C-alpha cells in the first residue's frame, strides 16, 4: 500500500444528455504505483478517456474519490488548485498532438515551463535537452506543420516530460500513427518514464501497446473487468 501513488475509489461519472443519463464510469476502484507503466484497454465507449480525464483533473467526478500521494483529493480541488496541481505533477499526451501551430518545436516544448514562470534561458535549455532526448535535436526551429505525425507526437511527448512531472497521462498516443512509428513512440515514452521513475498511464486499443505496460487494465461498459500484472 505504501507504494500507492494514485488511488481511485468508487469513481462514477454520469453524463446528462438532455433527459438521458449516460453512465460512463460505474464505481471504479484502482490503485497506481509510482514508476510503473499502466495500459487501459477496452472497447470504444467503455469509459477509458473519461477515467483518464478525471485522473488528470480535467473533469469532475459525479461520485467517488481520486487521491494523490494519499492525501490530495482531486475531486475537492477548485479550478485554480487543479491548474496548479497539473502544472506541478502531471504531463499529458494527446492523440492528436495538440501542438501550437504558430510556435516552433522548441517553443512548444518550453510552454509548460513558461506557465511555471521559468526564465527564457532556463526553459530553452531544458526544452532543447528534452527534444534531443526524443531524437529531434535538429528540428528545434521547425513548426508543427513542417513535421511528420510521428515527429509531432515526439514533440508533444517532450512537452509532457519537460517539467519532470511525477505522472504522465497519454490518451491513445499512437492512435494516429502507423504501426512502425507507433512502436518507436511507445519505446520512447516508456523508456523516458522508466529512466526517471515516472508513472505512465496509457489508453490504447491496440494489443501491441499493452506489451509495453507493467499492468493492463481492461474496461467494459464503464467497469473494470480485469487487472493483469505482467
Amino acid at each position, binding site marked *: 500500500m505504501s507504494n500507492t501513488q494514485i488511488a481511485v475509489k468508487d469513481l462514477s461519472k454520469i453524463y446528462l444528455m438532455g433527459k438521458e443519463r449516460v453512465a460512463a464510469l460505474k464505481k471504479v476502484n484502482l490503485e497506481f504505483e509510482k514508476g510503473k507503466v499502466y495500459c487501459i484497454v477496452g472497447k470504444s465507449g467503455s469509459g477509458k478517456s473519461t477515467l483518464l480525464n478525471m485522473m488528470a483533473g*480535467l473533469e469532475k467526478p459525479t461520485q467517488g474519490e481520486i487521491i494523490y500521494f494519499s492525501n490530495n483529493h482531486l475531486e475537492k480541488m477548485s*479550478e485554480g488548485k487543479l491548474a*496548479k496541481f497539473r502544472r506541478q505533477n502531471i504531463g499529458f499526451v494527446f492523440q492528436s498532438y*495538440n501542438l501550437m501551430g504558430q510556435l516552433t518545436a522548441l517553443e512548444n516544448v518550453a510552454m509548460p515551463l513558461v506557465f511555471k514562470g521559468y*526564465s*527564457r534561458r532556463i526553459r530553452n535549455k531544458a526544452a532543447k535537452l528534452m527534444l534531443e532526448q526524443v531524437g529531434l535535436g535538429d528540428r528545434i526551429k521547425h513548426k508543427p506543420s513542417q513535421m511528420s505525425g510521428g515527429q509531432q507526437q515526439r514533440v508533444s511527448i517532450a512537452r509532457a516530460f519537460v517539467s519532470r512531472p511525477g505522472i504522465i497521462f497519454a490518451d491513445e498516443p499512437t492512435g494516429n500513427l502507423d504501426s512502425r512509428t507507433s512502436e518507436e513512440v511507445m519505446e520512447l515514452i516508456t523508456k523516458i518514464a522508466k529512466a526517471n521513475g515516472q508513472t505512465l498511464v496509457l489508453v490504447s486499443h491496440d494489443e501491441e501497446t499493452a506489451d509495453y505496460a507493467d499492468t493492463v487494465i481492461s474496461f467494459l461498459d464503464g467497469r473494470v473487468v480485469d487487472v493483469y500484472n505482467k
Partner: protein
Amino acid sequence: MGSLDILAMGARNLWRRKVRSLLTVLGVIIGTAAIVVMISLSVGIEDALVKQFENMGDLSIVEVWPGFSGNERTMIDTEMMDKISAIEGVEVATPLMNSYARIIADRYEVTTSIMGIKPEALPYLGIEISEGRLLTTEDDLHMLFGSQVLPRFQIPRSTSNMRGGYYPDYNQSTEPPIDVMEVNLRLSYDMGWGDGNTQYELYRAQAVGIIGGDGYNRYSYSVIMPLDTVIRLEQENNSNNRSGGRYEPEFNQVMVKAATLDDIDHITASIQQLGLQSHSLSEMLEEAKRSTEFIRLILGGIGAISMLVAALGITNTMVMSIYERTREIGVMKVLGAKLADIGKMFLVESALIGFFGGVVGLGVSFGISYFLNNIIAGAGMIGIPMQARMSIIPPWLVILALVFTSSVGLIAGLYPAIRAMRLSALEAIRTE
C-alpha cells in the same frame, strides 16, 4: 508566468492576425483622433475666450461697490476697507476715492476730478505712463495727470465770477497749452461758487507723470493723487468737517488685486459676505466658459461615439480570436496555465490594441491640429484672428488620451478574457 512573457505572447498573437489587428487598431486610431481633435477645438475656443478677456483687462482684479439689499445699504468706510484688505489672497486693495479740485498752473487753470488711490496699488491697475512715473508711497501733494485733463487747462475768462475751465470749451485745441511736468502747480478746493467768506487754502503741488496709452480709460479724465493725501484734503476743505464734525471718508468703488487667479473665487465670496457688490473679469470669463462647456460636451460626445464603435471593434476581434483559439486555450489549461494568466493574455492583447491605437491616433490628431491651425485658419478660411489657434492639444489631453484608449482596450477585452478563463479545457480540446 512572467509579465514579459504575457506581453510577448499578446504581441505575437496580434501579429499572427496582422490584417485584423490592424483594422481594429485603425478603428481605435479614428476614435482617438475624433475625441482628441474635437476636444482640442473646444480647448481652442476657450483659449481664444481667455485671450479676449485678457485684452480687456487684468483678470486678477475684482471691483467692489457698496451693497444694496432692500432698504439696507452697506457702505465702504475705512473699517470696511480694512476688512477687505484682510481677506485671504488679497494682495492689495485700494478705493478709487473721488474728489474735485481746481489746479492752477501759471496763468492756466483746470477744475477736474481728483482720484485718490493707494500708490502701492497703482502698478496693478493697468495704468500706462507716457511721461514721468507712477506715484510712490513717499509722494504727498503729487499728481498723475490723465491725458484728457491737460487740454482743458485754460486762462480763466474772468477773475471774479466765472473761474472758467469747468465747462468744456469744444473749440479749444487738443494740444495742452502748458507742460505740467515743468511748471509749479497749485491746488485749491475753492471752485468759486462758495459764499466768498470761506477761506480755502492754496496748496503747492507737483506733477510726477502723465497717463498715456491708447484711447481713453477710466483714469483719462482724472488726476490721480495718493489716497491719504486726498482724504486729508477732504478733511481740511469740506465745509461740514470744518464746522467741527468728524470726517469719515466713504468710498464708492474699491479695486482689489488678488495674489493669484485661484484666489478670485474665495475673494468674491468673502466680499459678498461682507454685504458688498463685486464684479470681475474672471467671473465673467467663468460664465463665458460655462457656456462653452456645452460646445465641449457636444464635440466630445461626437468623439466618444467613434471611440465606442472602436471599443466594440476590439471586443468583436477578441471574441473572434477566442473562437479561433478555443483549442489552444484548452491545451494551455491542460498544461497547467493559471486561469489569471490566460485572462491576462487576452487583456494584454486588447490593451495593446487600445494603446497602439491611442499612440498613432494622437500622432494623427497632432497632424490634423497642425492642418487646422496652419492651413485652414492660416489661409483665413474661417474668421479666426491669427494669434488664436483653432485647435490646441494640451499635455493633459495627450496623457488623458493614452490612459483612456488603454482603459477602453482593457474594458473591451474584459468580457472576452472572462470567457477565455471560463472555457472548459476538455470541451476546448474536443472541438475539432
